[in-house]
């Protein structure tokens, strides 16, 4: 039944009580920890709105059981960077004025940051390929590509 577990999120340890080990990580982050960055978009891993980094890799937190990340390092959008210490991609995102509504932003920034971490100078086709699984209903796709290329030039 209920068990305690500790999540490492944005450099801090949080202990939560979990009734259902199959509960997706998204609900632990939002409901137990009160973190608003990852958002519910589909619950199916199809859109990316819930994306966080688990040990540096982007994952869809809506489809990952919380029990699978007990020892992992989790980073949300706010943990990626803030106004004092922005991630270069966040800076580029503002310079390119990428978003409209911003509901999808966790997926794009977390995927983009992961891409830059493994490939600091991606080509435009590589950026487009990295973003192909994400959904944005405002149509900000090209602006997101421009932002990654801008960040990569400044790195």
């Amino acid at each position, binding site marked *: 039944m209920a068990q305690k577990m500790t999540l490492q999120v944005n450099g801090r340890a949080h202990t939560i009580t979990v009734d259902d080990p199959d509960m997706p990580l998204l609900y632990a982050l939002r409901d137990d920890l009160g973190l608003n960055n990852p958002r519910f978009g589909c619950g199916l891993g199809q859109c990316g709105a819930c994306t966080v980094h688990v040990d540096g890799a982007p994952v869809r937190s809506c489809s990952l059981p919380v029990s699978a990340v007990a020892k992992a390092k989790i980073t949300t959008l706010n943990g990626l960077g803030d106004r004092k210490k922005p991630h270069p991609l966040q800076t580029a995102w503002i310079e390119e004025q990428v978003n*409209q509504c911003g509901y999808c932003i966790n997926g794009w920034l977390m995927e983009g940051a992961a891409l830059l971490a493994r490939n600091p100078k991606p080509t435009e086709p590589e950026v487009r390929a990295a973003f192909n699984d994400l959904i944005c209903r405002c149509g900000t796709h090209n602006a997101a590509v421009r932002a990654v290329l801008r960040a990569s030039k400044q790195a």
Partner: protein
Amino acid sequence: MSDHQPSRRAFLSASGALMIGLASPDAWAQAARPSPKSPNNPDLLADSLDAYLAIDKNGKVDVFYGAIDGGQGLETSIAQMVAEELDVPLSAIRMVMGDTRRTLNMGGASGAQGVSRRGTSLMKAAAQARQILVEEAARKWRVQPGELAVKDGVIFLRSNPSKRVAYGKIIGGKPFRENVRWNGQWGNPHDIATDAPLKSYKDYKLIGQSPRRIDLPKKVFGEQDFPGDVRLPGMLHARMVRPPVAGAVPVSVDEASIRHIKGARIVHIKDLLAVVAPKEWDAVRALRAVQVKWSQSDPAFPSHREVHAHIRKAKVTQRTIERENGKLEDGLAKAARVISGEYEYPTHSHASMGPGCAVADVRVDGATIYTSTQKPHYAADGVADLLNMPRDKVHVVWMFGTGSYGRNDQGDATADAAVLSKALGAPVRVQWMREESLGWDPKGTASVNFCKAGIDETGEVIAYELISRGFSRENVSTNEGRASATLAGQLLGAKLEPKNSFNIPFASYTFANNRVGWETIAPLMDRASPLRSTHLRDPYGPPILFGSECFMDEIAVAVAMDPVDFRLRYLTHPRDKDAVRIAAEKAGWTKRTSPRPDVDRTSDVVEGRGIAYRRHFDTFIALVAEVRVNRRSGVVEATRLVCAHDVGLIINPETLRHVIERQLVYGTGRTTVEELTWDRNMVTSLDWSSYPVLHMQHVPARIDVHLIERPEAAPSGAAEMALGLVPAAMGNAVFDATGVRLRKIPFTPDYVKSMLAI
């Protein structure tokens, strides 16, 4: 409660003497004489300047924008407009958006009129505020107002700039108590007039500049709360339980089926069914576990594949001819040749990125609602209607949220939350699921366009007919201002109020013997239908322009004219013609007929170009699409889009470019992949596979936006007008590439292959 009529006398008695008389009432305001008290908050008076802006001691300006920013940058653009007329820095503006306690009902988001209607109203209020403050300073300094100037919210004497006073010092925190002339209307038509002169566009300093968007840093750093992020003490998480078959209602619910889930409960009121729990995941588990006996229902829907055949044969409930000149039948009789074409447009879901989500806290003496619906004042009215509460007891707090491009599911989720909170006596957060959002949001509905033209021996078009037939665009209202317009209201038995609502985009093509109109048919299901129609972004653009602008190319082919030349010959408005000319020029359009003469029929991959034009309000747009068609795979891609866009005065060029680029991407998805599917019983597009949307690999990588500068013309709208051209421009380009005319949206590989094989 303040019952006083605001008057300049009251304001000035607080600060000194009386200099300026009350604005003379005009016949416009006299005739209507409706109460200026906002139905959502009687302390707000529509004929009071104080309902539009307030200036605090530090010179910060609260702007009361009775509408919203759906993510397209209106917060910044409206702030620029107000700052311009008030002569304050942009950083002095604080936009107050959509809050029903603090703003008047200016219609919410509707028809991309944020700038053209609501922004220009607020500019008039700003100009009046500036005038009052300057006159007040002039009176104190015993000089003429003309001797003063304003910079950055500081009034100074031109001849001695060290003599200065800040706005905040004069008015800081006090009301103006000044009248504006209100036109007696709420919602979209709301407007005001004042006697203060507006600046000439030649003197603009902020308008026409591109300051960065105010809202973006909060979003980029994960600081922006949306309605789903509101957490209230004792709040319960709810999931609505929807029937597997449209029209079925819950007969009985097995309470034991969710008993194993901690704190989970069932709420069953008439035909409305939900599960709630203190923890969100437990509400999801309860939704999955709950056992419901549903009533028998057989909606017998014609499927999405059969819906156009249904539209063709269904009884017409209303026929309206919108524009007619000459006699169509005479023109057709005289014609040497008559050509005709039919074009089918599918049903689309709003398919918003975030499914409907709202938080309601309903108490005995009033309700507070947190929502991102695009029409918050109407949402308050609808909740008041649902809960039987006075309208001013419902406070809707509008928040940024998922992009709202039409009446998506946010308003229905808002109504759900209100009903559940009242029933449970606790704050309730309702989150719709993905399958619910696609399955049960109000839809942008299907239509068939019937086009006909008569051509005489000389190649002159002497008859033209366009009739668009389909479901009304308002099976439910375009706002949730009545219980009957919401799923919750319908499930609780509210009397339906459908309308026959349709429209044909205006165009300045002038043909002898012309008839343009529409026909509506009955909805497939009346109550709580997953296919109920309402406004989806550019509700009459893509569905009708796909037919009318593709057919223009068919006529051009019939008379062997270049499609650009053909349009320039029959369009009569100079701004229309400019848009067409400039789009063609920027695209490097070479004059010739379609299909291209050098089409290589042996090649798998062929390319073509097409153009489409429209006018919407006073926005004039032409779009050139270049496409690549893979004849083997059937994949159609837009490789380049070139848009010439005339919106009149441009407030923020960079934001305008972005808004156009992004809607062209969205429009490409509506053209090539999006289609709602359903069977006899229910919607079957229930996730992002079965309701496919555009992914990066098919996004047009080259989008060139050319803004036509007309600063002397009033600003029109831009948030949805260009997207309506994508289907026709791409359809015309596919014809140019292949010689095959596509007659149905979306251009899926299967459909394209089937057409190419004919």
